[in-house]
């Protein structure tokens, strides 16, 4: 399995490439939890976005700023309220949602400061995750979930179907759903059925306000 390709010094994951495809070139966006800035850098260079970032770890922030990115140290849970309504065309949350305590609050904030939100996350309904629990009796460890249970930043374990339910509850619309299987094969979908939930390793949602 090779889900990573090399561009320059930064490795761009398949989900990051798919997110880049969802974003309108030249738009204003914020990447919440931008890590070391690989995705944001890609968006600024190739999609020519006016990009900002927030990152919790100081090390990540320093790397981002040294790359020339407009990134500040901050916490998605507490610092999004500083931004005005409609400040961005897109608010990105890439692989960060499982580590969020106030999931509803953060999603609502993303869709207040951004006209759209792009959210990607690993699917806990994926069959390998289920089989780890069912047959091995152990918490899953995979490329998407690389950390042992005691050191994982993830505190929310949810499936594609769970997330669909939450969007409905929050009265938000998935304008686009892209699922990625273990071979890195991406597919656009309009709804999530049982098999999709079982075969999808990770997913990217483009979410709009209703």
């Amino acid at each position, binding site marked *: 399995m090779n889900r990573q390709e090399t561009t320059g010094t930064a490795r761009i994951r398949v989900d990051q490439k798919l997110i880049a495809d969802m974003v309108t070139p030249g738009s204003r966006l914020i990447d919440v939890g931008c890590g070391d800035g690989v995705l944001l850098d890609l968006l600024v260079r190739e999609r020519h976005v006016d990009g900002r970032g927030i990152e919790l770890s100081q090390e990540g922030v320093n790397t981002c*700023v040294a790359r*020339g990115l407009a990134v500040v140290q901050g916490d998605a849970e507490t610092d999004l309220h500083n931004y005005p309504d409609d400040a961005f065309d897109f608010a990105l949350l890439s692989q960060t949602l499982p580590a969020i305590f106030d999931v509803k609050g953060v999603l609502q904030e993303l869709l207040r400061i951004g006209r759209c939100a792009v959210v990607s996350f690993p699917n806990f309904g994926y069959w390998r995750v289920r089989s780890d629990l069912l047959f091995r009796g152990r918490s899953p460890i995979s490329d998407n979930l690389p950390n042992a249970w005691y050191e994982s930043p993830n505190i929310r374990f949810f499936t594609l179907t769970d997330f669909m339910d939450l969007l409905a509850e929050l009265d938000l619309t998935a304008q686009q759903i892209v699922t990625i299987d273990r071979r890195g094969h991406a597919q656009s979908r309009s709804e999530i059925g049982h098999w999709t939930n079982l075969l999808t390793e990770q997913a990217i949602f483009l979410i709009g306000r209703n």
Partner: protein
Amino acid sequence: MTKQEPDGAQSSGEAIAVEPTVTDLPGHQLVLGEADPLLLASGQMLGPFTVAYQTYGSLNDDRSNAILVCHALTGDQYVAETHPVTGKDGWWGTIVGAGRTIDTDQYFVICINVLGGCMGTAGPKDIDPRTGEPFGLKFPGITITDMVAAQKRVIEHLGITKLFAVIGGSMGAMQALEWASRYPEMVFCAIPIAGAARHSAQNIAFHEVGRQAIMADPNWCGGAYYDQDVDPERGLAVARMAAHITYLSDSALHRKFGRNLQDRQEITFGFDADFQIESYLRHQGRSFVERFDANSYLYITRAMDYFDLAAEHDGLLPTAFEGSPVRFCLVSFTSDWLFPTAESRQIVHALNAVAAAVSFVEIETDSGHDAFLLEEPEFFRILSGFLSGAADQYARTSIEASA
């Protein structure tokens, strides 16, 4: 403080002229405000007056590579060369120079001695043509806004319509913020380092201690000491010693000096400099008075005390940056207790509130406020990255603008 529009407004009273200082200092001097005096925040008019500045590197053909470096309280325009008075290296020679982080092969670097200063720019030690005597305390009160308004005239004189970057630490950060807030169309990116949007009560308190030390020196004579044989050196030295402590950190002091004794094995039960830290501070005080004017110290500390960017905008800091096209990079240092990270973060929050382009890093160091002047590889790496990223964006926007 009431809001005053600096510069360009109509004169009400007679302008205060400052006789040009004749110096043999290296660098450039420019007489400003002859026809069009500078309206100061105090409401007084200033002009003509002299401004001294230094440049490094050369301005490119489209005048797009200019970086204004703003110096701190006791700094001056000699950023990257041997200081003409002290013989020491330039105060930012580690950052500014050929092949350095701010590469003078690439950028045209300008540093201007601030208004009220004592290295060739008009200040209290200059002659008041009305009396033929040095101004002393008759020199008009100066603010950060006034300093920046004077700098703007120098930049315009150089034919530069837009600075690529304005960068400065401490009081230099205040100037960078003021530039970005008041003249955003003239600044592509602003880099306020170890700064604040307002001087805190604690910092005003420390400045007041320094000023009181100067004014308590019998040689100060109400500021009219220039025709005497002696200057208020003791007072100024004590002011510098007290201030110097605030530039360091407890752990840096402990690391450098601990409780080590100075040139002795035993304590003396006297009041000589028993400890190394005492000896170090005394040396700092002594060497400072050789190059700095006590009245300038009063005026410039006051300018910092008066700085409050939010107050100029009805108490709302975000308003100071509303719609700003400027790209900001704020830097703070973990052990800086004079301009702590919280101060920078407050500016970042204000910039976020107007969705401005802002980068903010906190550098781990035990060197305190002084860290911005020292060899801090992580800081250099980030500054270099930010500048090259901003240079790419600047080139792109220039191409788009001309297309």
